[in-house]
């Protein structure tokens, strides 16, 4: 099915490519890039550096304003993804491109369905998907609806999509952002196998450690331009980071020991029953002001449900939740926010932002009806704008103006908008779900610092993440969730290794009930 490739030359290449979006943003500037066949090439750069745009050019989703795209050694005009697919290019997008009401299998085969004469064959869909999943070592449930499976499985489905199309070039735009360490391992193994079979892989990630682990060479982008390509063996995380931002950047988080104050969040006998998704069973824990408590667990073990209950988006079935003395279990979202709960949601596209709303509007959703933004029923647009200008400045959100719609921001900058809003509310309790998912090293560092600063200002921080490194680096204490139950509690994280926590996450080990409950007050009047 693939069109012929040239005998030799790079698998994909860009020659003096520039891309200017309709709104005048010049996202890619005169980029020359060559990737030989059978190489895993990492592309790194800050948020908004133009990585995704460059990939979209290779995949035919956008057309270059000038310059040339080469695939299989020859210049090509890609009118759309169909031409790129025909040339053997597959892409896994940063923002997943799946049809929510379709099953995993249907999504995998969409566009090139097995079946005869214009008909589809549901059984063949499932079989094909299952076989591919087996071969590539990517576990999915072919029959599950995509909107009912975990983000991790959606990600795997996306990769299967490309494999199903027999891609010779695989573009992975931040594929590991949502994966657990184990899943990342498996993915890397699969990618290496593909590479050894002759596949060319373009790999984008903000996790420099992963970049070093998987890639053969690394290309660094800054502000739309390619600033250099280095062999992975010659690069360190620190040197890559410096190339990205154009100056020296330390990646270590300085974190003074926590000074926990009074209990801010008190969860007792929390039960949550749902027919679909993960139920929660008898959770008891405290988070004190001035400490960061991490929640580890394999994706889909109740973290999302816990976060949404604490934020007021779901009602617990039984049990109590107190935030700084206020019983919030029966309150709505606004009540939670009044009680001082801030929440960085897991899926910024779903409910973290109004994509067509301006940055300014997105920054005030929780405070639009309060002074100084609103007085006596009047919303002061000047104040809203000033508020936005201030946060854009403070949080280094890369945008020309507060009136820009959030949709036009790169993923990392979107995340900054959300974090800026939640942190600037001065929460008593901050629930941070996957807070650095898809953000660049600079922003990541910045967010770490913000979380620590919030902690030091007295906030209780509940940090939920799939990234164990991040959890261990930031958490003062750590909880582990498995199947909706609390299975471990580490009151001191110094010296704790990822391996050890992994054992609890997988359910190999478990803490005693007494240990889990030690020191918790008010157990009696749990309900």
């Amino acid at each position, binding site marked *: 099915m693939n069109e012929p490739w040239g005998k030799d030359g790079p698998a994909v290449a860009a020659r003096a490519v520039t891309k200017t979006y309709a709104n005048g943003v010049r996202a890619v500037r005169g980029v020359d890039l060559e990737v030989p066949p059978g190489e895993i090439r990492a592309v790194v750069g800050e948020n908004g550096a133009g990585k995704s745009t460059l990939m979209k050019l290779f995949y035919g989703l956008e057309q270059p304003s000038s310059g040339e795209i080469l695939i299989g050694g020859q210049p090509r005009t890609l009118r*759309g993804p169909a031409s790129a697919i025909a040339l053997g290019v597959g892409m896994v997008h940063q923002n997943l491109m799946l049809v929510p009401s379709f099953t995993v299998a249907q*999504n995998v085969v969409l566009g090139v369905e097995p079946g005869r004469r214009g008909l*589809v064959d549901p059984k063949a869909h499932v079989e094909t998907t299952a076989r591919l999943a087996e071969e590539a070592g990517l576990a999915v449930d072919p029959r599950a609806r995509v909107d009912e499976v975990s983000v991790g499985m959606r990600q795997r489905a996306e990769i299967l999509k490309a494999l199903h*199309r027999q891609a010779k070039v695989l573009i992975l735009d931040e594929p590991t952002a949502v994966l657990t360490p184990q899943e990342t391992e498996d993915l890397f193994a699969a990618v290496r196998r593909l590479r050894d079979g002759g596949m060319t892989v373009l790999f984008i990630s903000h996790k420099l450690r992963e970049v070093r682990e998987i890639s053969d060479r690394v290309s660094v982008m800054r502000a739309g331009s390619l600033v250099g390509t280095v062999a992975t063996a010659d690069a360190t995380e620190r040197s890559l980071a410096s190339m990205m931002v154009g100056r020296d950047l330390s990646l270590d988080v300085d974190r003074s020991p926590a000074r926990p104050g009074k209990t801010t969040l008190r969860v007792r006998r929390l039960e949550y029953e749902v027919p679909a998704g993960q139920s929660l069973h008898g959770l008891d824990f405290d988070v004190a002001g001035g400490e960061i408590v991490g929640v580890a667990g394999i994706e889909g073990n109740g973290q999302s449900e816990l976060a949404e209950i604490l934020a007021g988006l779901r009602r617990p079935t039984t049990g109590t939740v107190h935030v700084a003395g206020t019983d919030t279990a029966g309150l709505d979202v606004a009540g939670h926010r009044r009680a001082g709960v801030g929440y960085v949601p897991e899926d910024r596209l779903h409910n973290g932002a109004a994509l067509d709303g301006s940055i300014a509007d997105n920054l005030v959703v929780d405070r639009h009806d309060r002074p100084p933004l609103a007085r006596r029923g009047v919303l002061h647009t000047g104040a809203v704008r000033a508020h936005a200008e201030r946060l854009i400045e403070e949080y280094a959100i890369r945008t020309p103006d507060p009136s820009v719609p959030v949709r036009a921001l790169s993923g990392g900058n979107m995340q900054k908008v959300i974090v800026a809003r939640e942190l600037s509310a001065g929460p008593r309790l901050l629930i941070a779900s996957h807070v650095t998912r898809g953000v660049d090293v600079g922003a990541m560092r910045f967010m770490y610092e913000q979380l620590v600063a919030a902690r030091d200002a007295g906030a209780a921080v509940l940090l939920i993440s799939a990234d164990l490194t991040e959890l261990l680096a930031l958490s003062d204490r750590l909880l582990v969730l498995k199947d909706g139950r609390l299975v471990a509690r580490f009151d001191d994280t110094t010296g704790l290794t990822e391996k050890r926590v992994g054992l609890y996450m997988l359910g190999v080990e478990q803490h005693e009930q007494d240990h889990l409950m030690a020191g918790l007050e008010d157990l009696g009047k749990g309900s």
Partner: protein
Amino acid sequence: MSSVLDVVLSSAFLAAVLRVATPYLLAAFGGLVAERAGISNIALEGQMLSAACTGALVAGYSHSVALGAVCGVAVATLLGVLLAALRLELGADAIIAGIGINLLASGATAYAVYSLLDDKGGTSGLKSGTLPTVTLPGIESIPVVGDVVSGQNLVTWLAFLAAPFVAWLFFRTRFGFHLRAIGEMPDAAASVGIPVRRVQYAGLALSGALAGLAGVFLSMGYVSFFVRDMTAGRGFIALAAVFLGGLRPWGVFLAALGFGAAEALAVQLGTLDVPPQLVSTIPYAMTLVALAVYAWRRKRRGAAGEVATASL
């Protein structure tokens, strides 16, 4: 009360339901296909009207009922394509474009009839005939069912076949599979190389064709002539059926059939001594109640995943 029951159980009433429901069913399936392709087809009314007019005129002049029907459906199909083109090529809002097409159809049909026949009312002066009725051998001998289905117009049969056809199209064909993907998430469809626009054009053409069949039924099946504005708001009722049916083929089928039944019932009960305007609210009031009950039950069941509807 028992007289009402007698009416409802009579084969004449059931036959009337099939007749009355025919244009609703076809137009509603037209609306469904368009909605699922991601472009709301508010122009159902105009497509029906144009098809009804073209069908009667062509049949009248060519003395070929078949040719008339084909031309009628073809014109409605073109209007479906026109709506798609306005939306996709010129970026027009589908709802305004639909309203514009309805206006266009109303003016153009009246003009065509007037300039050809010098009659502002319609084509009743032109002998155009009706599409044939269908009687399956043997079916007449079945009690009740025989009476109900025998002698129904060909288009009525097609209308009832449209439900399984659309269901089959949506869930068993590659085209339907792509169509649903596009309606729900065009970016995802585009990213796997599905020719999004082409599929949308095809979907809207099919939508227009179905609406056209409904229109042809009005002027070449129900009655044998065209009358200015004879669709009389049926396109909008069909649109209501699309949403009442939850954008699912069999749901839409039931909703459209329900509209047919309610209207037939209103016709049968019309001779009772109740103000006629109030009697004619029955189908609409029933729909409103059904909509509320249906929504309430769905909410209680907590079923998630409502298909995205038109956006503004």
